[in-house]
């Protein structure tokens, strides 16, 4: 499974994505964020206020309680500034 990072989150991590293989107890997107933060201090600090971020699963914005089973591409999205 791939995790994508965008904008200043991508810059802070110095990479645009990770290839991951989370353990079975990581069931939802919220679990996944929790698991990712625990293993990466830069991500943990950058996501100090997790409510700021939207999450997507296979290019659809979804709520944090969405399961990750079967997902190919997860993204962590800092506040958007389009338009």
């Amino acid at each position: 499974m791939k995790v994508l990072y965008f904008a200043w989150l991508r810059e802070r991590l110095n990479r645009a994505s990770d290839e991951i293989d989370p353990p079975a107890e990581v069931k939802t997107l919220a679990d996944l964020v929790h698991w990712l933060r625990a293993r990466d201090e830069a991500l943990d600090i950058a996501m100090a206020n997790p409510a700021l971020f939207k999450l997507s699963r296979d290019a659809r914005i979804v709520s944090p309680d969405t399961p990750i089973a079967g997902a190919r591409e997860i993204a962590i999205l800092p506040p958007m500034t389009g338009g």
Partner: protein
Amino acid sequence: MIRVTADPFDPGLNANRFQAESEGAGAMVTFTGIVRSTPDRPITALVLECYPALAEHELAEMRDRAIVRFGLIDAAITHRHGRLLPGDTIMQVITLAPHRRAAFEGAAFLMDYLKTDAPFWKQEETENGLEWVAAKSEDDAARGRWS
């Protein structure tokens, strides 16, 4: 029509084509966003990052929601990404409706959603380098109007 593109586009031609293709519209509203450099805050460029697959899906969903909610005949969104210069067109929303109120409200609704829910991220390029544009809490408030 939903288009997410790194290429320049012609907003006037876009609007003319959209108007010509539709039947029964009495009102068309366009909103065009333009790269702005001011004496107070001169920038040399605006660099837009984007998650294209998600952007196309989100913009199409916003468009569909606006059509249903305001009874629009049709709506279109074009949004650029990449490096744009002052005066360049960033994006354009077009709404077609039987009457003016729906066309105006549909376009304002799409803009408010776009500002907070479309996966684009702006950086301003100045003499001192690149700086991420902060998300505005007033944009969240503007979006809140519609809930």
